[in-house]
């Protein structure tokens, strides 16, 4: 049925689908997805303890700490897997994508998508992400998530006694960790919504489940 399976950049003989999300890609992605949703929810349970009390405060803190550490290791999986498999090339914008490609993609989301136009950037074995995706994923995975990991682990180390507790630093770090979490929550919402912008509303979701993308192009 397929020319090659389980190998990056394989192309399906009949359907034209391209295999872009390996099992490791999908594993770290779904661990991250579940982890960040849990972190946002438990974080809200902690931050808005008086109004958002789904779990007890202690349970929310414990779950938040455990999931935070899992997501930290998962980020490490993403980083080293992409580094050693040379898949970071998918994230790097080419010279003609910044900024013309960004504007083109933004125009598509702001106008073309309503008119039923074609996606401006077709996905193939050389292009996994459109320019907006590249920029946002670079921002999230190279800046936001590491920032949340560093601030979260620092807070965790202070409260577990690995580093000296400082109430001023505690307040500063919990504040910036909170701000990062808000941005992460917004990203998750937008990211989930944008999965519906494939050829079919569920085609991008299927891509992240099966690994096969149906948008082969030039």
């Amino acid at each position, binding site marked *: 049925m397929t020319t090659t399976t389980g190998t990056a950049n394989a192309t399906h003989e009949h359907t034209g689908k391209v295999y872009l999300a390996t099992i490791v890609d999908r594993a770290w992605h779904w661990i991250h997805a579940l982890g960040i949703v849990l972190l946002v929810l438990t974080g809200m349970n902690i931050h808005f303890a008086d109004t958002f009390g789904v779990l007890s405060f202690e349970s929310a803190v414990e779950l938040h700490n455990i999931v935070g550490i899992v997501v930290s290791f998962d980020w490490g999986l993403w980083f080293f897997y992409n580094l050693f498999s040379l898949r970071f090339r998918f994230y790097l914008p080419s010279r003609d994508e910044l900024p013309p490609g960004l504007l083109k993609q933004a125009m598509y989301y702001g106008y073309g998508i309503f008119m039923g136009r074609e996606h401006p950037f077709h996905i193939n074995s050389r292009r996994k992400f459109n320019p907006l995706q590249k920029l946002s994923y670079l921002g999230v995975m190279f800046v936001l998530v590491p920032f949340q990991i560093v601030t979260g682990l620092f807070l965790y180390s202070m*409260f577990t006694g690995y580093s000296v507790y400082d109430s001023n630093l505690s307040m500063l770090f919990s504040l910036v960790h909170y701000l990062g979490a808000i941005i992460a929550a917004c990203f998750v919402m937008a990211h989930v919504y944008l999965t519906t912008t494939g050829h079919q509303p569920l085609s991008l979701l299927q891509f992240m489940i099966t690994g096969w993308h149906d948008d082969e192009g030039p």
Partner: protein
Amino acid sequence: MIQQERHLIMKRGTPFGILSWAFLGLLGLGSAMAVAAPGATGGAQAPGASLQQGSPQQGSPELEERQPEQRRQLTGVDYCMACHGYDGAGDTTIDDNGLAHNIYVDPERFGSSVHYTDDLKDCLGCHVAGFTVFPHENTSTKTCLNCHEDHFPEYEAIKLNLEKSVHNDNDKAHLDCSACHSPHAVKRATQATPTEKNMACIDCHEGRFNESGESLLERHSWHPMAKIHLYNLPCIACHSQPDESQPGQHAFKHLITRDGASRDCNDCHEPSGKMPWYLAAMGAPPDPDSFKNIESKTYLTGSSRNSLLDMAALLLLAATFLGCCGHGFLRYFFARRRAAQ
């Protein structure tokens, strides 16, 4: 409430009351006999030494009529503790304020109270008349302001608020300072533990004025960190609102009832919250940045809470959500229109 309980309390003139007074009289007589025996000690262990003084006598002359040595003996705390330090002694009469009059004085609490450690060490310093005859008659006791007259302006302000509160509701209770702030247990705000401070409230609200019948923890179970607050903070940290015009330990004179008490973490925990005034009441220097005063290894939920920041964050989340929904709706709308064409 108080009416329902009056029948439980000893009153002079009732059979139960007569028996109680007889018991106390026997207790005093027993103490006297114990003291009269050479080398004998006994009775309740009052602060400091054991009971050593002479015996109380029915119809004894007033203190002023006695010899100096006898007067010295009669003013000792240990002497009075023979009766009042006995924990079986309890409510005897109902005072004018509607509360049962409890004659028990906890020797341990009194021994560490400021009225014992700082100056008085002498019951008759406050109980000025009628207390050297047994049973005490025509008594006269100093009020707080007899000694603390320099606090009169603060007292007036506190009194005004007290008169508006449930603690001055004539249908329930008509309280004065000592009804809650026992002069036999009073300590400086900076020296009293939260538990000692809370005794002023718990003495009534865990017992006779607990209308729901639930424990304190049950009544506060809505709080996400009920235990840590309940057992480490004074009740007034939540059940009062500081008066910024009066910083310090008198800032918390506006008591708030169950329904009015704040259930918002920000009320204390955000930098502009009332924690600085609470900390000032605890003896910490007033500081607008309350968290600088928290040196313990305690995670303060809400330490990153700020009403404006929370509002901005929720608006951003709502805008993202509505933006996605709006975009999706427009896509659907235009897709339908294209299909119709």
